[in-house]
Every structure is written in structure tokens, then in C-alpha cells.
């Protein structure tokens, strides 16, 4: 597999992020492990509150309000968890960059786009003013902003939403990060622009050899962009594997339910499938499988006994006690589609 050939840059092991008191902690991310290889795009999917964003923020150590992060986050072999704020600051922006959901509010409204790019260059490189300006133009060009030279002195409000997201990406790319964390970068954009931004991220990842973790709740986005997918629910991993496996041949009942709720090739006016119930509150998670309360194939042991991630095939891990039942439950109708 292609992913096996490339070196692993980020290795997250047993990540656990919790908030609140130590006696009654709210566990937002629970025993999450995954790896990202250089140049690879990993999709992190799940509903709101499933811990996707907290996982991303744990990597950079920017959990607000302050949470407790345990486990290991190995960045090129170096564990980020015990690092001090000052040490993390040298990694943030320089080696690992992040872009956000809201391009409207993630740019400083009072500084021109050129200044905001060159600010990152000031913080992380030794370029002088003229080189920074040249580099800023180059970056805006790279992210596909037309007439980049003339737009350097424009303010964020003079850009459209999609263009602003491009600017955000340009700022993030300024110091050649090796990993880009994208927190629902296309959610606030309309569909055609979404597509452009995803293609941009894809081509940047390919051309610059940059690893990407793409957080989204949109399976369609995952299918067209990511090399591998991790499905999260209630702060835990349900299923992780190559996109072909997880999207094309999902095994976990939650992944199957998510895929089922995408409208594709169905007759008009057919009611859309939806997973019954609502995601559990963090303080009401069962000790066993987090999805058991909503799972159509859950057995009696599921709420109490935590299923382990187990390998199915060569490139996929699934955490479920009832894989065969899930296949049987979702299988026929899946086949009918």
C-alpha cells in the first residue's frame, strides 16, 4: 500500500483528553490512536460532539478551556504532550499548521492579507521585508488567488468566503508546515467552493508532501479527498482504515449508519435513513461501546464491555462485538442500492 511506503510523521497513541474535575472527568477523547504518513490525507469523521475537533486541538496543545491530555502524540518521534508552551510555539505554525471552519472570523479584520501572511514569516523565518512580500505573493498564487500581487494590500472583508479560506491556507502554508490540521475547512462554504478548496488541499498535500488531517462530518468530502478515514463516536474510534475500505465496505454499525444516511441513488421522496436517537452526553457515556444505545445490532454485553479495535484485512481496524450482525442488518439494503 502507498501509505506503508511513506514514513509516519504523526503517531498518536492512546490519546485521552478530559475536562472537569479529576473525580468526575468528562472524557472528550478516549483512547484514540492513529498514524498519519507524510503526504497522506487522513479524514476524521463523526457527528458534532464526537471529539474530532478536540483531537485536533489536543495535538497542538490548544485545548480551551484547559483540559488534561494524556497518552502520546509522537511528532517525528518527539512526544508533544509533555512539551511546554514555549516549546510548542516553535512547532505550531512552523511544523504543524491549522485552519478553521469560519474563514469569516479567522482573519484579523484590521490587517491586510499581505501583512497577515508576512507576520507568520516574521515569526518563523529569517526573510527580510522584500523577500517576505515576494513569498506572500507566491503563496497567494499557490492557493489560487487571481492577481495575487494586487490583492496583497486588501483587507479580509474585501474577499469572498472561499477566497478568505484560501488566504487562511496561504497563511498556514507560509512556513512550509509538514502537517496541516483542517478543522471542517469547507463547512461554511457553498458546495462549488467546497469542492475547489478540497481540491486545493489535495493538490497542496500531493505537491508539497504535506500530511493533512481533515476533520469533517461529511462522508462525501471524505470519499473524494482522503487516503484514509477514521470514524469517531463519543470520543472513541469506531473504525479506521483506507477510504476504499471504510467508505466502500464499512463494517462498524455506526459507519454503516452514517453512509446509509447519505442520499445517493434513491428514488425521489424516499424518506432518508437516519440513525435513531441522539449522540450521548459526555457525562452519560456507557462503560462499554459508546454507540450501543443507538446501535441496531447491539447485544446485552455491548454497554458494559468495551470492544477493542481489531484488524480486518490488512489496512483496517474496527471496534465492534457484532460485525456479522451489522453486515446482516445493513447488508441487504446496502446491496439493493
Amino acid at each position, binding site marked *: 500500500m502507498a501509505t506503508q511506503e511513506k514514513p509516519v510523521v504523526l503517531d498518536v497513541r492512546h490519546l485521552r483528553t478530559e475536562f472537569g474535575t479529576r473525580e468526575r472527568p468528562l472524557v472528550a477523547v478516549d483512547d484514540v490512536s492513529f498514524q498519519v504518513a507524510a503526504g497522506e490525507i487522513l479524514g476524521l469523521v463523526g457527528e458534532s460532539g464526537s471529539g474530532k475537533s478536540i483531537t485536533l486541538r489536543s495535538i497542538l496543545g490548544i485545548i480551551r478551556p484547559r483540559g488534561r491530555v494524556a497518552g502520546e502524540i509522537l511528532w517525528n518521534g518527539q512526544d508533544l504532550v509533555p512539551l511546554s508552551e514555549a516549546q510548542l510555539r*516553535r512547532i505550531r*505554525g512552523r511544523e504543524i499548521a491549522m485552519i478553521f471552519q469560519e474563514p469569516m*472570523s479567522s482573519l484579523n*479584520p*484590521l*490587517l491586510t492579507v499581505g501583512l497577515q501572511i508576512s507576520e507568520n514569516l516574521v515569526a518563523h523565518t529569517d526573510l527580510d521585508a522584500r523577500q517576505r512580500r515576494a513569498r506572500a505573493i507566491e503563496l497567494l498564487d499557490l492557493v489560487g488567488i487571481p492577481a495575487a500581487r494586487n490583492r496583497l494590500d486588501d483587507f479580509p472583508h474585501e474577499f469572498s468566503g472561499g477566497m478568505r479560506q484560501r488566504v487562511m491556507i496561504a497563511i498556514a502554508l507560509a512556513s512550509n508546515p509538514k502537517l496541516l*490540521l483542517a478543522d471542517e475547512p469547507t463547512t461554511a462554504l457553498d458546495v462549488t467552493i467546497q469542492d475547489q478548496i478540497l481540491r486545493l488541499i489535495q493538490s497542496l498535500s500531493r505537491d508539497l508532501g504535506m500530511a493533512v488531517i481533515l476533520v469533517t462530518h461529511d462522508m462525501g468530502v471524505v470519499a473524494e479527498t482522503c487516503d484514509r478515514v477514521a470514524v469517531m463516536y463519543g470520543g472513541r474510534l469506531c473504525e479506521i482504515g483506507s477510504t476504499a475500505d471504510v467508505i466502500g465496505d464499512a463494517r462498524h454499525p455506526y459507519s454503516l449508519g452514517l453512509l446509509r444516511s447519505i442520499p445517493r441513488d434513491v428514488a425521489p421522496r424516499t424518506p432518508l435513513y437516519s440513525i435513531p436517537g441522539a449522540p450521548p452526553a459526555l457525562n452519560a457515556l456507557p462503560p462499554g461501546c459508546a454507540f450501543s444505545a443507538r446501535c441496531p445490532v447491539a447485544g446485552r454485553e455491548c454497554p458494559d464491555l468495551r470492544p477493542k479495535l481489531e484488524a480486518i484485512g490488512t489496512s483496517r481496524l474496527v471496534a465492534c462485538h457484532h460485525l456479522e450482525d451489522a453486515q446482516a442488518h445493513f447488508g441487504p439494503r446496502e446491496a439493493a442500492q
Partner: protein
Amino acid sequence: MTALTQSHSPTRGRIAAFLARAFSRPSFVVGVVILGLSLSLALFPQVFAPYDPLAFDLQAIQQRPSLAHPFGTDNFGRDVLSRVIWAYRVDMQMAFFATIFALLIGITVGAFVGYYGGIADVIFGRCVDAIITFPFLVLVIAIVAVLGPGLVNMYVAITAVNWVYYARLTRAEIMAQKANDYAAAGLVLGYSDRRIIFRHLLPNAISPILVYWMTDMALAILLGSSLGYLGLGAQPPAAEWGVLIAEGRNFLMTAWWMSLMPGIAIVLTGLGFSLVGDALADLLRPKGR
């Protein structure tokens, strides 16, 4: 080189547009005219004042307003107009010095407290409570009484109390700005806290603070003249509006102009600050983008 000039012209255009918008408001124009006049009187009183403000003229005691003495004369025959004009120098200084240090201290403290929160914020909150429990004027008078009367001590006293209000305002604004994604973006880009606070958050938070500063300068003049009136601020024979009003209070029935004329100066200057502050508040208010 062309690149450099290019980079400045849009900003200059924006400033010009802002000024054009500002000067299309009558209230702003009136305010600016009043403040401009006040400032010139404060800077060059010797040019405008017809007489020496301290020179006695015992031949002309408590004369009604006339052509020779448009604002009349006081009980020592000093020209009230000249004294009111020279008082501009003292009172405009008060407006500035009684507020500027409070502004700087308040912004710095408020920005840090608002950004970091936590225990510093709790301690700050208690301090604020403790200070604002006292009525402002009473606390200032108490501090001046301890330090001794005089302008410098008055500045110290006012600053000691007044910074709290700036800090409170700044803290709230910074906390609001901190919630924006660009603050988080600064964090993930690895910028230092100082850089995030002073380059990103504060410029976005500053306009209500500047507007408050404008109004506060008007209040500082009122406060300064109150203290002058009570004998705790500027000391006679120096010309200061509060002092002038105090000098005239025994002669309200016979020589009303001694107190009325400086009173009008106070009102007018205060109005100037308020008008400009008000217009700025409107102009700087973010419009729906």
C-alpha cells in the same frame, strides 16, 4: 520602491474616506472646532489673552463686562477673559494628564487580565470591586488629602482610581475579541501571547476605549475643576476654571461674571469632547460586513 508606495496608498485612501465621512457630520465638525479652539487657546494663551492674567488693577475692580474687559474683571481688577484663556492651558493639561496614565495602565492590565483570565482575573475582579465601592470623587479627595493639594498629586490620585474603569472596559473587549477564530489562529500559528494581544486583539478592541477616553477627558476637566474649587487641585493665584469659580462664589450677587464665564468655558470644552467622542463612537462602530 513602487511596491512600497503601492502598499501605503490604499490605507491612505481609507483614512481620507474616514475623514470625509467624519466631517460630513455636523456634530463632529462642531466638536472639532471647539476642541481646536480650546487647544490653540491652551497652547498660545499669550497670543489671545488681552491682559496679564495675574496683574492687579485696583482702579478697575469687579467691572461689568465691557468692550475693554469683555468678561469683566474680578475683585482684584484682573481681566476675567484673560484668566479664563490662561486657564485653558491648565484645564486642557488636566484633561490629558489625568486620563492618559489611567488609559495606558488600564489598557495594559485589562488586556493581560482579559487574555489570560484565571486567578489573575479573580484577583483583578476583587480589586475593581474594592475600588469602585467608594464613590469616585470621595476616593480621589481622600487620596489628594493624604498626598497634599496640587496638580501633580491630583493626577496621581485620579489615575490611581480611574485606571480601573479603563481596565474593566479593556478586559471585556479583549475577552469578546478572544472568542474570535483569528485569536485561535494566532495561537496555532505559534505567535507569542504578547503579539496576539497587542497586534491582533487590542487594535480590534480599542475603539470603544478611545471613545470612552474622549468622554473621560471631559469628566477629568469637571473633576479637576471640582478639586480646584475645593482647593485641592490647582492653587491660586493660578488661573484654573474651578479656582476661578471658587473665587467668584462670594460675589455671585454683585459680580456674577466672575463665576459664570469660567463655568461657560467648562461646559463648552466638555461639550467639545463629548461631541467628538459621540461622533467617533458612531463612526468606529463596526458595520455589518
